[in-house]
């Protein structure tokens, strides 16, 4: 796991690196927070970078805490894969305090990673990154026919959908019948 000025990723949170002080005026020390994903690897991220995430920003804005308390209570995003969270953290760091460009060419091209990233970004409410990701998803099917789109995105046909629905109903019916029989057996 790599360490950067704004963010450090490790199994155990490391000490923050101090940014070089400006000669003009002493800067207010930046506060850092800690997040981890499914892989439990902790990422240290500055409050400035986390401002991109409306969810995290909303959570931390009302929490007065010390560095130690933040370190001891990393935000657990168990629903986000470690590498996806790493991408999100990297993006937030790269775009910290900067206007976001109209295009972002560094987004993953692989379908699975991109969809995971979309869901993570949607969950974390990072509006600009979500816009880029959705654009990238749209680009996946540029110039494709309905059959090709169905294949790329694994969209079932209406017939397949209906069959799956019937099967699910059948299964649910069987389970309900089984439960009723079991309940009747218990009553006896």
């Amino acid at each position: 796991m790599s360490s950067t000025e704004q963010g450090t990723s490790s199994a155990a949170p490391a000490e923050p690196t101090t940014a070089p002080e400006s000669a003009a005026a002493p800067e207010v020390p930046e506060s850092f927070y800690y997040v981890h994903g499914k892989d439990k690897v902790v990422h240290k991220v500055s409050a400035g970078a986390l401002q991109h995430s409306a969810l995290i920003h909303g959570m931390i804005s009302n929490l007065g805490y010390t560095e130690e308390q933040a370190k001891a209570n990393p935000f657990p995003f168990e629903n986000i894969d470690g590498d996806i969270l790493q991408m999100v953290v990297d993006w937030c760091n790269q775009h910290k305090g900067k206007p976001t460009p109209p295009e972002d060419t560094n987004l993953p091209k692989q379908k699975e990673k991109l969809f995971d990233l979309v869901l993570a970004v949607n969950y974390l409410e990072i509006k600009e990154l979500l816009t880029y990701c959705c654009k990238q998803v749209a680009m996946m099917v540029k110039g494709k026919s309905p059959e090709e789109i169905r294949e790329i995105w694994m969209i079932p046909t209406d017939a397949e959908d209906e069959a799956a629905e019937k099967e699910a109903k059948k299964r649910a019916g069987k389970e309900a019948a089984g439960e009723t029989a079991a309940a009747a057996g218990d009553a006896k």
Partner: protein
Amino acid sequence: MSFDIDKLAEKTENLSIDPVYDTNWCDMPTEIKRECIGKMEINERLSLRCTAKAERSLVDSQKINIRRCDIHGTPPFTQYVSLTSGIESTHRFRSANEQFKFMKYIWKVGVFENLYISLCQLAFKEEFIDYSGKISAKSIEFDYCDEEMILAVLKNTENNIKSITMNAQGRRTYPFDEILATSQVQNANYWHIEYHQQTDALYKVAQIDGSFAEFLEHFADRIVSESEKRVRISTKNPDRHILLERGLDDVVQVHYFPQYFRLLVISANMNESEYDDNCKQWILKMEPEFYVDDPDNH
């Protein structure tokens, strides 16, 4: 402080219980799908809506800005719809029914900058008259459409059209009373009638009949000012005047044919120094190729 930490713990605990994500289009939440569809061009949307019923209803719920939409319906030669949003795409059809089905989708989702309609088929007219959806367009140009078709389209158009252009060539009668009475025409900033002299358009619009000279004669008692280029008359509304302008410049001279006119409703307080002397601009709007040979144009 302990309260804050408790709150933080509670929040992070809540975060932890969310489900693990899958990674497929079909597992995307509806709002994300909509956002992605919103980023697609028209062709990709058309393809996606053919994949499954659920996708179709999603695609149909998303509006798309279309810079230009040309609808041609003169079977069997020119029966197509050409759309330009990002890139241009042309869709050809074998029957009016097939084309109208496509157009209904386009009208439902499209927000048009420019809509050009050239339809002279009875089947279309009947479909239009029965159509109850609304079309959203900033500018509509009718070409080879009869009055019933124009009325049927206008009736189905949102009431915020900025510009309406229609062609009266070859028509002996034109139901201007009905067309003029539509709220779409009443509210449009610009109404352009090509070959107006074949109709009673000017008479209906400004209660006059015929040419520049007749305009002067008809409104003799209301003339505020007159010149070779302009006649300004007062109206029943003391705050408003009507200005009839004739397009005259180095290229379009007094004996030039055709002649170009425009009617403007202006403030009664407008000074003559505020008149727009650049008739080239509005003539070009009527006839975009007009000044092609003018050396000043290059």
